[in-house]
């Protein structure tokens, strides 16, 4: 069976989803999604192992060779992303049961798990596939289920948030398909590696490449919420059910970034990509995003919204790293992909616990909460420190690499800007710490610590954001391999 791992990775959640519909019971649906996501995680680890030991895995649907058949092609880069997505998926499933039972109407819970599994399918599919159009299909599977998941939020604003995301997301996906269509006209293929090979022979003007790349970039930027195309994100993250927010924040945008890496480095290649001038634009937008979003985050009263803006800023870091076009920079971007997924997951899971017990994640409702929920807030602090980039947390590792990439490129001011924006992160994290730890509770209430079934996944993530801040062999090692491969131009 090990030969079929790439397709099983995507197929298992897809097959599991209908069972949730047919069986209809919320606990059974939860059990299905938990088992499925654990299996997915195991498979992703096996795939990573295979890739690291045997090199690139190529799997052709139906046995037809490229470019006709759809290929699942897994190298270090996407093996790594598969691990991230499925790990977060497993943690979130483990965590979600109580939170979902509380936040979602009873008769819709089985639909929630169905949509969740479909979303997982889409994200894993996007990552695993080697066909650019197939990627679009998976993108839409994940997007559609995401819209559904967001709309399940309790507040009625979840509906408008979902609608807003639907409009922006669809625009993004359509831009992507247009860009892809232009590439297809030039090359006649949709296979990513094939595209790379054939683009080299196309003697089109720079204009045509720019046009195609522009469409692809704008489309993907919408999906990954690159400033200033992030407008859908704050509402979506704020009003979605807590579990969904945690899942989306740590997977959806990450996968979109991965796709962008593929487009930039695998399809176009560093040289052509650099020639188009797009990297400079991305760098500027990334830096603007880091500052604007962090600044806005400081003024948020709703913590989910605060973290949402922080995500926009963090995406800025990732894109900044990529825009350096150097091994160090791209490594920084890729490792931050992983690191940010972990820390944001921890943070949103912590907020999920607060939501579960307090019923609100507004700062004004959290005075002195650390006394009542020490473990939850402890994990929040760990995540927050990581967000700031404090040494011994994952956030430090990526920021260190990022700054080094800037220094390497002789861009001292950029390095300084990275640090200054970390200060903004410090301000918004500190606001929470001060309120949670140093303010007296407004009213006497009998808020208890969150249940263990939520705390354990939360602390797995919090622990991971410390562990991988100290032991960087795995994350950095793989990220560097991936970056070398992408920047080195070997598809």
């Amino acid at each position, binding site marked *: *069976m090990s030969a*079929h791992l790439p*397709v099983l990775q995507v*197929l298992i959640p*897809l*097959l599991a*989803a*209908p*069972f949730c*519909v*047919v069986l209809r019971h919320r606990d059974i649906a939860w059990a299905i999604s938990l088992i499925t996501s654990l299996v997915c995680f195991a498979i992703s680890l096996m795939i990573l192992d295979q890739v690291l030991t045997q090199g690139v895995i190529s*799997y*052709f*649907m*139906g*046995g037809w060779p490229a470019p006709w058949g759809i290929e699942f092609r897994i190298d270090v880069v996407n093996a790594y992303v598969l691990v991230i997505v499925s790990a977060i998926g497993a943690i979130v499933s483990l965590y979600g049961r109580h939170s979902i039972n509380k936040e979602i109407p009873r008769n819709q819970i089985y639909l929630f798990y169905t949509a969740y599994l479909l979303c997982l399918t889409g994200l894993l599919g996007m990552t695993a596939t080697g066909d650019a159009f197939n990627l679009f299909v998976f993108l839409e599977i994940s997007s559609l289920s995401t819209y559904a998941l967001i709309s399940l939020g309790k507040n009625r604003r979840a509906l408008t948030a979902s609608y807003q995301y639907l409009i922006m997301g669809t625009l993004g996906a359509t831009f992507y398909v247009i860009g892809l269509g232009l590439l297809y006209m030039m090359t006649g293929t949709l296979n990513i590696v094939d595209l790379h090979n054939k683009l080299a022979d196309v003697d089109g003007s720079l204009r045509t490449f720019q046009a195609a790349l522009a469409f692809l970039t704008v489309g993907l930027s919408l999906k990954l919420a690159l400033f200033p195309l992030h407008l859908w994100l704050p509402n979506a993250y704020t009003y979605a059910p807590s579990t969904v927010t945690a899942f989306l924040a740590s997977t959806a945008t990450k996968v979109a970034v991965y796709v962008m890496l593929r487009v930039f480095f695998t399809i176009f290649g560093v040289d052509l990509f650099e020639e188009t001038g797009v990297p400079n634009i991305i760098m500027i937008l990334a830096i603007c995003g880091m500052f604007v979003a962090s600044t806005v985050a400081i003024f948020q009263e709703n913590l989910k919204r605060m973290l949402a803006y922080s995500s926009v800023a963090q995406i800025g870091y990732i894109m900044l790293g990529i825009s350096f076009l150097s091994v160090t920079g791209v490594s920084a971007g890729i490792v931050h992909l992983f690191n940010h997924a972990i820390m944001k997951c921890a943070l949103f899971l912590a907020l999920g616990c607060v939501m579960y017990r307090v019923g609100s994640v507004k700062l004004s409702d959290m005075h002195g909460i650390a006394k009542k929920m020490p473990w939850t807030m402890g994990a929040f602090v760990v995540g927050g420190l990581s967000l700031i980039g404090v040494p011994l947390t994952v956030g430090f590792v990526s920021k260190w690499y990022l700054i080094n990439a800037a220094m390497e490129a002789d861009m001292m001011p950029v390095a300084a800007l990275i640090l200054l924006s970390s200060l903004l992160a410090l301000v918004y994290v500190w606001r929470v710490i001060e309120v949670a730890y140093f303010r007296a509770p407004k009213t006497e209430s009998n808020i208890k610590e969150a249940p263990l079934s939520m705390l354990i996944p939360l602390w797995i993530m919090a622990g991971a954001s410390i562990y991988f801040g100290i032991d960087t062999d795995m994350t950095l090692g793989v990220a560097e391999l991936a970056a070398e491969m992408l920047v080195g131009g070997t598809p």
Partner: protein
Amino acid sequence: MMDRKPILRVTAKIFMPFILLFGLYVQIHGDFGPGGGFQAGVIFASSFILYALIYSLHDAKLVLSSVALEIMAAIGVLLFAGTGVVSFFYGENFLNYNALAHDPIHGQHYGILIIELGVGLTVFSAMTLIFYTFAGRGR
């Protein structure tokens, strides 16, 4: 309601069986041209939606209930993905149907037929379901 709209009702009545059959035709002949399942699903769903529009949602649900549709959608997905899995057990890649019959040509045909059936079922039930919720909520 239905008695007051004879023009629409009669038009729908005459067309309904033909639309349904056309849907099935597209479904079965899908393997001669790609994408049959989807088109068939759309056509089939359109006929149900038309029926619900001209008669009523209640009437449409009597013909096919939401629960039945949800289960059909699920079966559709299972058919689609499950067929591919079968090929594993013959040591072939996912979606490789050469294994499904004695000779590869027929194997592929059966495979595609079943897959398209899955797609058609899913598309049909998903579209109809969405319409049901949409129309059911709108008053």
